[in-house]
């Protein structure tokens, strides 16, 4: 317990004065007697014995009243034990909006830090809503920098409301621009919300997608999704550039909350594609997007010279593969005599041997072969060689009865082995071999090569900076929302008043006894 104005305790020095004023003893009860001579013996005996009259017992009561009032005036403060607080921080992209020279994130953390300091909360854990399992220490430079560096990379993924630790108070720093966070707040046991948002204007790039053109291997189509996340109509110029040159520049006008998709064809290959909005606004992070063009680059395939010619033709027909003779290949097709380097490269092994027929009706695709090509009528009915028995971690992608035909071996890099005879004469000129080869390449590279794209997706609401609502905590706990130094005055005042009433009652009774009406007993 602490005192707000301890100077009032000096009033306790009046207690000895109070005792001094009562030292002459209590106010005696006056009683008439017929003759004092009859009562003199007792008083004389007390006087002779040197007995000192005790002070009026009422002085204790009055001293207690004085003490209680002094303590009440000193405003005692009850110091509560420090609460444990988990500070949830909305680190979505909108929290990087610049307002008055600082981001919402920085401002929210600063306000939270002040509130925590005001509440004398010492046990603080900071968790970002984008990664609730991640925990930082108390709000400070290190935590702020860590949150700042990761902010905007992921959309908020609030934990389940029931998963919040019950032994801790939960605070939230947000701008209220994310519907998911807002709805989560409605169900979660959050005791304090620090909402920071003053700007309501922003246009941002929500998504950029680049896809190769099937009909033109030297061009790609890009789609840019813009969204006005503010409350005012906005106009921007969208600039698309690759390298030093600007490929396209288009003006765009968007109403509040509106989205628009722009399409543009750009030449390939490209190392990097940049989309930029001019002019920039309060949230510059969503005003430009840089798309890496590496996923669109064709993969070089080293083909074993002993492989059937149909293999090389299939690679040539594949939009994402190209044959190479150099050793910087991204995939090796091994037909028994392929180069085996030390650099780990995914391999596609085509077993060789005498051809054997098998029953096509017994073909069975496994669940792991998600990208299996559709069965065609000219499916090869011959195999060559034998596959080693699959290990438990291997995946049998295709089997004929109990005989595995395609196995994806466990381990990195991938190795896909097959006994299917891709060089069968009956498959010449059909699309069966290219489709099978594309399937085997996807399995070896763990990719969907026929559906390549490069892009960036920030989420549909990433540019939303206008608060959806004014947020309030659903539950307000006295333990954490009131000041740490809770006033503790009224109990003292009430006790003093009770004692005062007692004293007044005693005085009134004494007055009534000494000066009240006397009942005559004389009939």
């Amino acid at each position, binding site marked *: 317990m602490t005192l707000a104005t301890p100077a009032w305790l000096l009033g306790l020095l009046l207690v000895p004065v109070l005792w001094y004023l009562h030292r002459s003893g209590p106010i005696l009860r006056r009683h*008439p007697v017929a003759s004092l001579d009859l009562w003199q013996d007792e008083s004389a005996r007390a006087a002779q014995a040197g007995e000192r009259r005790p002070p009026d017992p009422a002085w204790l009561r009055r001293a207690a009243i004085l003490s209680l009032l002094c303590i009440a005036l000193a405003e005692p403060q009850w110091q509560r034990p420090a609460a444990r607080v988990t500070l949830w921080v909305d680190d979505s992209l909108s929290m990087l909006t610049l307002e008055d020279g600082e981001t919402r994130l920085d401002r929210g953390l600063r306000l939270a830090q002040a509130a925590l300091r005001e509440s004398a909360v010492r046990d603080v854990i900071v968790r970002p809503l984008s990664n609730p399992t991640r925990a930082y220490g108390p709000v400070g430079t290190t935590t702020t920098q860590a949150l700042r560096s990761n902010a905007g990379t992921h959309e908020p993924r609030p934990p389940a409301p029931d998963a919040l630790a019950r032994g801790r108070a939960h605070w939230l720093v947000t701008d209220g621009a994310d519907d998911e966070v807002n709805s989560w707040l409605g169900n979660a046991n959050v005791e304090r919300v620090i909402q920071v948002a003053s700007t309501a204007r922003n246009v941002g790039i929500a998504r950029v997608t680049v896809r190769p053109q099937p009909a033109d291997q030297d061009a790609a189509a890009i789609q840019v999704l813009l969204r006005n996340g503010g409350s005012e109509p906005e106009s921007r110029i969208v600039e698309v550039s690759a390298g030093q040159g600007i490929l396209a520049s288009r003006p765009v006008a968007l109403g509040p909350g509106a989205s628009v998709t722009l399409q543009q064809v750009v030449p390939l290959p490209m190392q990097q594609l940049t989309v930029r909005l001019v002019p920039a606004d309060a949230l510059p992070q969503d005003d430009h997007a840089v798309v890496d063009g590496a996923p669109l680059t064709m993969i070089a395939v080293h083909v074993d010279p002993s492989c059937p010619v149909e293999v090389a033709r299939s690679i040539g027909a594949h939009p994402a593969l190209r044959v190479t003779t150099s050793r910087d290949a991204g995939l090796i097709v091994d037909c028994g005599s392929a180069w085996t380097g030390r650099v780990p490269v995914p391999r596609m092994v085509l077993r060789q041997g005498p051809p054997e027929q098998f029953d096509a009706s017994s073909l069975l695709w496994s669940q792991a072969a998600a990208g299996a090509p559709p069965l065609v009528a000219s499916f090869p009915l011959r195999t060559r060689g034998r596959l080693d028995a699959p290990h438990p971690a291997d995946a049998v992608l295709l089997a004929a009865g109990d005989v595995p035909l395609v196995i994806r071996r466990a381990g990195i890099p991938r190795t896909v082995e097959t006994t299917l005879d891709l060089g069968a004469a009956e498959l010449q000129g059909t699309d069966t071999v290219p489709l099978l080869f594309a399937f085997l390449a996807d399995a070896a590279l763990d990719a969907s090569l026929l559906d390549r794209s490069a892009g960036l997706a920030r989420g549909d609401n990433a540019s939303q900076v206008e608060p959806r609502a004014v947020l309030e905590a659903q539950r307000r706990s006295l333990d954490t929302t009131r000041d740490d130094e809770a006033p503790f005055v009224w109990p003292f005042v009430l006790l003093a008043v009770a004692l005062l009433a007692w004293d007044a009652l005693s005085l009134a009774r004494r007055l009534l006894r000494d000066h009240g009406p006397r009942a*005559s007993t004389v009939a």
Partner: protein
Amino acid sequence: MATGALNPAALPSHAELRSFARVAAHLLTEHATQGLGPRTVRRRAGAGLQHLDHRDYAPGDEVRHIDWRQTARRQRPVIRQFEAETSGDWFLLLDASSSMATGSARKWQAAVSATTAMAFALLELGHRVAIVAFASDVLAVCPPGRGARHFPQVVRTLLALRPAESAAHSNLAACARRLRGTASGFVVSDFLGPADLRPSLAALRERCVQLHALEVHATADLQLPGPGPFELYDVESGATANCSGRAAAESAARAAHAALLLRLQRFSTRSGIAFTAWDVAQPWQRVLVDHLLRAHAA
């Protein structure tokens, strides 16, 4: 302290008075024929007087009773004493000091009842009865009178009395000059005063044919109300004293009062005064009859 004039209902009823008078008549009559008191003769009021003795003149004596011959011979005023042949004069001296009305004033009520009863009984026997109420001085006097017609005046005098709440002390000596001739005295008092009023009693005894003293006290007056401490104050003198221990103080007061009664008893025995201590918790009839019996036996 509760004081106030009594109302007629507070006095003994007529039947009580007549009952007491019948008993008292026997005791008082026999006593008159055997003792020192005046001889009581019924229905002979106004008959002549017979010379009995001489004594020195005292203030209040009738001048016509001065024996001038003896006065000249002794060189001091001497009066003639006569034997009362018809009836005696009784002076009932009632203490109306403040101490009689302390507490519940039961002492005062009892004293008035006893005085009324004695007056009724004496009037029934044909005596002349006077009432003298005293405190610091004589407060009221009902002059001597005789017969049943005098009783209402006695009652009126008693009912009109009202002891002062304070500062009225007992001065029995003030009554002495009211006694004239040969008379008997009946003092009703609590005898709380200087030297227990014994000097005044002694002086009265000198002037009275016979003297009765009825000490009135109430045990309740020696108890303190509730827990202390108290400031005790004397209603007559105004003096105060502090008292902290209730039980010890009450015990000491009871002992002091017992010592007072003992002193009075011894003094009365030595002085030929019929003395009785009366706790007002006892009925007045019993106390007065006992008192007269003891006086008769003495």
